[in-house]
């Protein structure tokens, strides 16, 4: 029933709204079930923990065959904002917390959040540009060390 210590390491590499939630929800579920969880934000995934961007993550209807919108229309100005608004409204109805609150919950739940050093350098970001829930900025090799024995999920 209670496994000894199962450990999940989740890599968030995309910064769109629809790619932010799966990693965060899984990390939260792991903590709910009593397992260790760490999340590594890299590349565009850094947007999820970027203090200036976290409240403005978007989803794009373009290039997404699951969207019920013809590709020609999906590329029109304003469609991305519309798709984002619709998705946020649907999530609000289900009382799914916004991303910033998800990050606060995760930190309170004891999940460890890390940002990727190389991506930080690329985007010219410093630790102070990130939400305070990020525990540390670490290298790819640090991540490999910290995730030893963990099941790794790449999003």
């Amino acid at each position, binding site marked *: *029933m*209670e496994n000894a210590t199962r450990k999940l390491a989740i890599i968030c590499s995309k910064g769109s709204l629809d790619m932010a939630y799966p990693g965060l*929800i899984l990390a*939260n*579920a792991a*903590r*709910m*079930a*009593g*397992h260790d969880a760490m999340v590594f934000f890299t590349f565009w995934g850094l947007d999820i923990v970027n203090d200036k961007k976290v409240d403005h993550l978007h989803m794009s209807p373009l290039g997404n065959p699951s969207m019920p919108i013809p590709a020609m229309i999906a590329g029109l100005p304003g469609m991305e904002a519309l798709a984002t608004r619709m998705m946020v409204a649907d999530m609000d109805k289900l*009382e*799914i*917390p916004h991303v910033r609150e998800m990050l*606060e*919950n995760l930190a*309170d*739940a*004891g999940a460890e959040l890390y940002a990727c050093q190389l991506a930080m350098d690329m985007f010219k970001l410093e630790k102070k540009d990130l939400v305070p829930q990020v525990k540390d900025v670490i290298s790819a090799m640090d991540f490999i060390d910290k995730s030893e024995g963990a099941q790794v999920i790449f999003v």
Partner: protein
Amino acid sequence: MATKVYGGIAVEVDDEGFLKKATEWTPEVAKAIAVEVGIPALTDKHWKVLEFARQDTASSGQSPGPRRIVASAGVSMKELYELFPKGPGKLVARVAGVPKPKACL
């Protein structure tokens, strides 16, 4: 289906250890399950959470997840994880004698 004895009371549990019948639950059963899941003594705050979980399940028909518990039971997310360190998502429900929550949050 299995029967287990908690606090001297025989109760039916499912494969994951959740009580099959909420009516078989007593505070003594809760104390014994708590010990089994690594909580040696239930404090007032534990009881507040457990009572909320039982009431909420009875009224809504679904066991509450941590987010719902934190919104209504008067404990913070941090406290909830301190009270049930091995995973409040499952353990609140197990100790409260209600089914495993379907909530993802």
